[in-house]
């Protein structure tokens, strides 16, 4: 049931004002986005059409706290098929950013570990200029599991066998002949100060929202 007195009619404008959210209001609810979605195939509750309609109606809290936001694979099938040129994939990305902001403000709680994952990924880029897989995992797993020890265990469960494969195939470590610690240590660019400046600028832009 929709409680009209709880709706936030300004919510759609929050999305419309963001890069990628511009065409939101063109949606006429045909559901092409959802019918072609590979995630909906696996998780029937996952419904980008519904998320868009709820956003247009102003169901701010329900949209931002919807756990399904975090299982989008960003494959852009919805975007490619939308007959109204709604950039559905980008709209969902904008909504995820707004959800993270709402969590920071204490309005909602995000259960999915995906924001932690994305943050850990981007931390390595900010620090080194390039993705550092091991650094990403070392930050992500302990945060996700809530303790260093549990994090190490979860990481081993997911990546021990994978790591050995990378080692024996010479993609990480000495066997590839590309250096003793290839792929084990981070690959760093020299202009790391520029990375710092980029992330600082993005942070400032976020504050303007």
């Amino acid at each position, binding site marked *: 049931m929709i409680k009209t007195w709880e709706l936030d009619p300004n919510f759609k404008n929050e999305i419309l004002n963001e*890069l990628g959210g511009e065409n939101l209001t063109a949606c006429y609810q045909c559901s092409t986005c959802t019918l072609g979605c590979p995630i909906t195939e696996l998780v029937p509750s996952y419904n980008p059409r519904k998320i868009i309609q709820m956003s247009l109606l102003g169901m701010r809290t329900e949209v931002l706290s919807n756990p399904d936001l975090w299982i989008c694979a960003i494959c852009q099938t919805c975007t490619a098929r939308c007959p109204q040129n709604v950039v559905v994939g980008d709209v969902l990305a904008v909504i995820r950013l707004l959800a993270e902001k709402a969590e920071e403000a204490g309005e909602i709680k995000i259960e999915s570990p995906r924001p932690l*994952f994305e943050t850990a990924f981007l931390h390595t*880029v900010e620090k080194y200029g390039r993705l550092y897989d091991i650094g990403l995992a070392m930050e992500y797993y302990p945060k996700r599991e809530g303790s260093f020890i549990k994090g190490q265990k979860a990481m081993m469960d997911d990546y021990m066998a994978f790591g050995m494969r990378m080692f024996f195939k010479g993609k990480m470590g000495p066997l590839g002949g590309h250096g003793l610690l290839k792929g084990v240590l981070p690959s760093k660019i020299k202009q790391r100060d520029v990375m710092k400046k980029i992330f600082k600028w993005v942070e400032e832009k976020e504050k303007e929202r």
Partner: protein
Amino acid sequence: MSVEKLAYLPGCPSEATALEQHMSTEAVFEKLGVELVELEEWNCCGAAEAEDQNLVYALNARNLAIAEKDNLDIMTPCSICYYNLARTNNALKANEELRAEIKGIDPSLEYNGTITPKHVIDVLVNDIGLEEIKSKLVKKVELKVAPYYGCYLGRPPETAFDDPDDPVLMDQLIELIGGENVPFSAMKTKCCGGPLMMTRGDLAFEMARKILETAKNAGADCIALACPLCGMMLDAKQPDVEKALNVKFEMPIVYITQLLGLALGIDSSKLGLQKNVVDTKKILGKVV
């Protein structure tokens, strides 16, 4: 042939998990007589994890600016790098204010929109051309291949260079080198699940399973692909998918540049075929 020299952005996986894609790309372009100048000090494009478009634009402006200084179009073998470069290029070309703002972060991000980002497959088929490649082939790769395109080659429309539903460029390359494309239209552009690997492994594995299973049922000797994240998901994680879902595929996964390299007569070790996780030896026997 219209292209002689390109700026080359290998992308982060080229240094570890997709080393063989990097090796085979360099070897193939050397053989085709196209000089690749690796982008000095290139940075990560932000991949699918940079959800803030401002961040995508700033990170990719830097890579575009480095290539622009040398006045070279920029090529990458990574589908996500391509998508991020191409959408940044579009946005910055169209928006002078954004260009100025990004230049204001640091002078090294000054990009004037004078070059074009390209994906390896686009360069091979549309710039170098099938005729030119054909004239350099020395071997036949008599394999049944499942051509897997993944996400960012045919979509979103803003940056796509192939059909969104039934892309053909990789099919054309496979036919050219003597291979046979197995019926694979249903899976060609389905997402591999890669971006969900560390947060919803269960979904990612299921998505990978569908692709591997379809290729196997279609009688493919291998899957050919063009994206290092797809490579990680379908090749490097294939034993994990098999274990988690109690299935067996043993499906070799190769980068399209590795297959093309074989047809160009390049030594398999130079193409990194010993580095693919699922053994590729049995497919080498069909290169004649």
